[in-house]
């Protein structure tokens, strides 16, 4: 059970991020979750959207470099130490990046986790009693 995430290249110059966001706004893309990785030379905008394929096509049509990646989603109880417990569970698995988001719908928080092997990470998380969420869950939030 994986979630498809869209990653977008953002040039390191003024207005580059707004250009991408403008394209998304014009396409009426609803952003469920968003995270920005910022290095000194460029940025990567990562996001979870209801229709990843449509979003990818929209971006590409505008000449924006973007890609689709499968990531793991995990539900967190909204309580102190929850994220720590997730990461602790994943010890030994190399995590590329992680970001969290909240929704209006319920009390819970969610994390997006990028690992090399989603299946293995999810097995470990499930074994430790965590709830894995898939595309259906997150898109309907």
């Amino acid at each position: 059970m994986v979630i498809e995430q869209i990653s977008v290249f953002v040039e390191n110059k003024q207005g580059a991020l707004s250009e991408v966001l403008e394209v998304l706004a014009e396409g009426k893309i609803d952003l469920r979750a968003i995270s920005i990785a910022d290095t000194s030379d460029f940025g990567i905008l990562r996001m979870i959207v209801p229709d990843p394929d449509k979003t990818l096509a929209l971006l590409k049509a505008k000449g924006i470099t973007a890609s689709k990646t499968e990531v793991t989603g995990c539900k967190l109880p909204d309580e102190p130490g929850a994220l720590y417990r997730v990461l602790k569970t994943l010890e030994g698995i190399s995590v590329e990046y992680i970001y969290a988001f909240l929704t209006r719908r319920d009390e819970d928080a969610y994390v997006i986790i990028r690992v090399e092997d989603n299946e293995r990470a999810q097995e470990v998380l499930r074994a430790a009693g965590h709830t894995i969420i898939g595309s259906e869950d997150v898109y309907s939030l």
Partner: protein
Amino acid sequence: MNAYWNPEIETMSRDALTTLQDRRLRTALNHAYTNCKPYRAKMEAAGILPGDINGVEDLWKLPMTHKSDLRDSYPYGMFAVPMGDVVRIHASSGTTGKQTVVGYTAQDIAVWGECMARCLTMAGATKDDIVHVSYGYGLFTGGLGGHIGGETIGAATIPASTGNTKRQLQMFSDFGSTVLLCTPSYAMHLGDAVLEEGIRDQLKLRIGLFGAEPWTEEMRGEIESRLGVRAHDIYGLSEVMGPGVSCDCPERKGLHVMEDHFLVEIVDPHTGKPLPDGVPGELVFTCVTKEALPLIRYNTRDICTIDRSPCACGRNLTRMGKITGRTDDMLIIRGVNVFPSQVESVLLGVAGVAPYYRLVVDRINNLDALEIQVEMTEGLFSDEERRIESTVRRIEKDVLSMLGISAKITLVSHGTIERFEGKAKRVLDRRTP
């Protein structure tokens, strides 16, 4: 399979060729001295008379001709025939000041057709091909030069000219173009469009002759895979004639110079003295059959090497290497000579990187700084920044080992570096002199 348009000349022995060149050189010098004042003045200033030159071995004694000589005599000052005998005018725009104007007699145009026919035949084209010329038609020699070649070999020749990429692709598929002539940067652009439209299977293109700007072996591979052609390098410049001065044969180990019309030398850029074969220097041409605009030891400012050994294709015509740069686009950064083509060759060697780049040179705290802007591509992009960063580090390392100076690599959005349909201009020098 080797086909020659003019087997007698193309496979002539070096001795017989030299005899022919000696005779033609003497005639050309007499013509220039008698009918072209600037040459007479140059030779008189150097204390040389046409009679002092017996043949090719004395060529080095003659004064060199530069682009500035042509510019200073704008427009017709160096023409050596009455205007009534001139049938064609071309001009090339300089980045500074006046255009360089060149003229042709009917005989000069016939020689051009012959040279272009040899190039097309060398690349494997025949009268049964459909030759698609996407060089610009106009004052630039590319369009009409390519055109006369196609017609001379008897092929159906399409004056497509440059621009309107959609229409070019339409013509490829509707007209069944089999041979394409254009600049290498436009070939890349057309290749990208073919990939984007997914119509490569509908194309009948099989041969490409690309020239008018320097390109690399890596770019050759890129163009071949995009367009499905066998790509040949064709060289020329309007001062000498236009495209067709030289072209690479199926061996692709250098471009055979049409030496029965153009004598070729390599000289030291600093001293102007001839260099031994194989040593890179400035490329110098002497036209021995030109009527309208004689050209004696014209320094092209292009950097390359020559090889006079016989070629496996059966031709004995001297081969010039690929142009590796120009002494006038050469950048001197922190005292090091840098050619944009070197950067291009590094980028094409890194998987996933497109050859769209721009060099920005600046002076920061009195120190030259080189920035190389490289376009982001799908092949280079990743959702993980460390992967992108490792490619950037790799480019930096390769640039350093190629140029001997470090450069900052900046990734810019796809499509933001201008695609050039004519000659590519890839340098922005912000240093104030």
